[in-house]
């Protein structure tokens, strides 16, 4: 137990410390001190995030159960930044709603523990760690989803999430158990060496994949997504759609590339079909949504489908493009969600028609929304375009031209419904538009960060180059 070891899992440890601090703070602060506590927590978390950017040693712990490297570190930082943005965007909500209900601190506790879970998940080195981390990341979120007590939909969403999630993990476990049975190993590396092609393996692989696809919400394992997203508080929704999905996609990539390297002729066709299904279903469902949370839910399903195009490449290019896209997607989605959050917090309106004429009353919000949506749709020059382009390049690199074409067609469909929102905000007028309102400083910061990310991530190539270089180190 030396310092080195601490440094390797510094991020997690810091989060745990922060979590405890918040717990203590919760106990000692008076009722009116709560909003101060919130500010403190956010700032503290910002500091944690900053620390994450200092270099940390690579390597494994606990005999390989836990391992970290610069790519994982990058992703963790990404997750931190994402959560930070979410927290900033939800500060107002926390102060004005939750403090009254006296459960502001618990929000942090749950979210941080889920984040810790994700951190452990992406640096898991064996299936045990992976499973534990997965549950750790899921369960608190279920609580968060059901956070709006006295709101039926919230509770309903909570139930749907927890039950479906446990089913999924049950399935995954069943699969894992077979993998264990065939190899006798639970460490990724050993398993990678020991796995033989056999029916049990296939069963295990597919079930495991299904379990994880649940978190990534790939068709047909995605159904919970929309309902839960709609029912949950918005910041939780954005957490689900951005943070946990991002982490899940990464670990999926990682495991497929490392553990099941030899089985690519199984999982590539699998991804192929699932990707097509996901893109189409996600887009077609998003097409008629009125509630923006639900709308973004389905759009995020479709986005997950696009990510598979990167994974299917099965090489460095694929990994790099996926990680890069996850980062891009994070900022884009947070931009969009942030605006929805701000508006629904101030006016309680979440429907597309309520946004008619938004630009004329709140130009700034509309601009951020537009950036976010364009980025999601993959319109240059914002980051999404580059992200998508690289994903497509990755897929085309292995000769999946048809798949790429289908994907681009889907991108066009998605453009249609993203434009519907733009149309509401810019083209349409309304007799009672959402009135102009000022946002608190945290919300502004949150949106600004997201917007900046959307603009910079694409045009400023070194970011992608960095991702590419480090994934080069890891996946070769």
């Amino acid at each position, binding site marked *: 137990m030396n310092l080195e070891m601490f440094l390797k899992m510094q991020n997690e440890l810091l989060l745990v410390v922060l979590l405890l601090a918040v717990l203590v703070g919760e106990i000692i602060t008076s009722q009116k001190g709560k909003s101060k506590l919130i500010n403190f927590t956010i700032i503290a978390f910002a500091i944690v995030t900053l620390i994450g950017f200092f270099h940390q040693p690579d390597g494994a712990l606990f005999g390989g159960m836990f391992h970290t490297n610069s790519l994982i570190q990058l992703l963790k930082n990404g997750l931190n930044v994402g959560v930070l943005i979410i927290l900033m965007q939800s500060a107002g909500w926390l102060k004005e709603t939750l403090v009254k209900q006296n459960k502001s601190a618990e929000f942090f506790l749950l979210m941080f523990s889920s984040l810790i879970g994700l951190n452990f998940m992406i640096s898991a080195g064996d299936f045990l760690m992976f499973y534990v981390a997965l549950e750790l990341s899921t369960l608190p979120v279920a609580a968060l989803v059901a956070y709006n007590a006295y709101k039926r939909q919230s509770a309903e969403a909570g139930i749907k999430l927890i039950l479906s999630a446990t089913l999924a993990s049950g399935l995954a476990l069943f699969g894992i158990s077979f993998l264990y049975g065939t190899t006798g190993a639970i460490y990724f590396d050993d398993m990678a060496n020991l796995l033989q092609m056999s029916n049990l393996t296939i069963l295990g692989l597919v079930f495991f994949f299904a379990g994880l696809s649940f978190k990534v919400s790939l068709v047909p394992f995605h159904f919970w997504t929309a309902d839960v997203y709609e029912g949950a508080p918005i910041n939780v929704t954005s957490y689900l759609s951005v943070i946990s999905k991002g982490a899940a996609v990464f670990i999926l990539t990682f495991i497929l590339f490392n553990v099941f390297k030899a089985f690519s002729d199984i999982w590539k066709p699998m991804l192929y079909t699932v990707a097509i299904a996901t893109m189409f279903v996600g887009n077609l469902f998003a097409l008629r949504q009125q509630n923006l949370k639900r709308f973004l839910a389905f759009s995020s399903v479709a986005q997950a489908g696009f990510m598979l195009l990167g994974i299917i490449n099965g090489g460095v290019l694929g990994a*790099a493009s996926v990680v890069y896209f996850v980062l891009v997607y994070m900022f884009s989605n947070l931009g969009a969600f942030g605006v929805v959050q701000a508006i629904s917090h101030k006016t309680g309106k979440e429907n597309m028609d309520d946004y008619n004429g938004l630009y004329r009353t709140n130009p700034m919000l509309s601009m951020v929304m537009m950036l976010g949506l*364009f980025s999601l749709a993959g*319109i*240059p*020059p914002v980051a999404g*375009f580059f992200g998508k*382009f*690289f994903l*497509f*390049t990755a897929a*085309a*690199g292995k000769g999946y*031209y048809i798949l*790429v*074409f289908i994907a*681009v*067609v889907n*991108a*066009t469909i998605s*453009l*249609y419904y993203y*434009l519907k929102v*733009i*149309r509401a905000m*810019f*083209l349409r007028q309304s007799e009672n538009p959402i009135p102009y309102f000022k946002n608190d400083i945290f919300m502004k910061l949150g949106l600004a960060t997201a917007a900046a990310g959307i603009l910079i991530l694409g045009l400023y*190539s070194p970011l*992608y*180059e960095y991702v*590419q*270089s480090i994934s080069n180190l890891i996946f070769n």
Partner: protein
Amino acid sequence: MDILSLFIVAPIITVAALLFAKNLKQSRVISLIGSLVQFAMAINLIFAYLAERATGNTAIMVFTKSAVWFKSLNIRYDVGADGITVFMIVLASIVVLAGVFISWKIKDLPKEFFISLIVLATGVYGFFISLDLFLLFLFFEVAVIPMYLLIGIWGSGPKEKSAMKLTIMLMGASALLLVGILGLYFYSSPDGAYTFNILEIAKVNIPAQVQHYLFPVVFIGFAVIGALFPFHTWSPSGHASAPTAVSMLHAGVLMKLGGYGVFRVAMYLLPIGAMEWSWFFIILSVIGVVYGALAAIKQTDLKYINAYSSVSHLGLVLFALLMLNKTSWNGAILQSLSHGFMTALFFALIGMIYERSHTRDVRELGGLLKVIPFISVIYVIAGLASLGLPGFSGFVAEMTIFVGAFQNVDMFHRVATILGVTVIVITAVYILRAVGMMLMGPVKKEEYYNFPKATWYEKTGIFLLLIPIIIIGTTPLWISDIIMDSIKPFIERML
């Protein structure tokens, strides 16, 4: 900062400046200055180009600038220009400048309007100068997207529908294009050293089998924005709903991206595919030419008439490109230029007439020559130019195309050509119909008599567009020679 990159930087600066504009006055002044600068740069570019060639620089592209962007994928910021690029840029800059003048009194959200306009211009410039397929594609979409807002916000009639149709169709086309570009990329080198650079890709010979699949993909991807026959339907409704300046840019510049892209990418990089497929697309383009013209005869909305005539004229561009010889290609470029100026002029005039009479229905208008002589006379001139009267650009372009097309001996090409030639009659019919109904004859309504005369900014816009038409029409030699030289390296891949 090299002379070409300025064409991307200048508009961006303009947009940045526009962000701080308070009201209509400021925003239009800023954008006027911006577009004037671009115009000056464009004119300067001609002379710079001639000077460069005079120094004996015989490279395919001059003023090239190359910088690595995404190293790992070998995506580069590669720009360069040849004679064709130069003229296309001049066209774009003039149309943009005229567009600013025409929308001098834009009512609603002026700042945003000009911003979108300039962004569109940026995309167009970028598209013309970029030698890197990624860059090309990026600018292509940058040019298309503002159309949605421009039509959707400032348009008229069923604007939301047409804006959506236009955007989705063009984006769908770019879907094909993207696949094509990726295909080109991964066949750009036998040994993993892939590149997006057009000139580089041209050096390797892509296997015929691949070209057979790639060419139609890339061609259609570009040709949709060039209003290829079955995919032209976005353009009429788009034109009809768009505000004046936007119709000008749309028909004058945006639709040129199609022909230009076909020429630069599809034909240049996939010559074998081009030869293989030309017959098929020739049929489509000839249908487009005749069909567009015939459909225009029956229209009553002025904008529809010109939209269909655009379909016909641009069909001629694709037709000429598919004839695969130097002369016809030269004609295609000339036609692009001349159509750009003419259609922009037409839409400008239609806009002015519409502002005064609040109708675009030729049956309701009449005798305008009496009440707004200046605008009407220019309209007549534009009409004559568009039906290919000698002394105007249209004639030069069309004759070059026809003579070029006639160099193909076999029956198929001959028949296609002769069918194409018939368009000179049909065009005359619909142009004269419009002119006769709208400008001549007795004045239809009393209130027409108190139409305001053309204002100074309207006149400026008009002359900006009219003068190039006459210059090309009367002294085509130097222009066509410059273009001819620039075409040589491209045509050589065909032979």
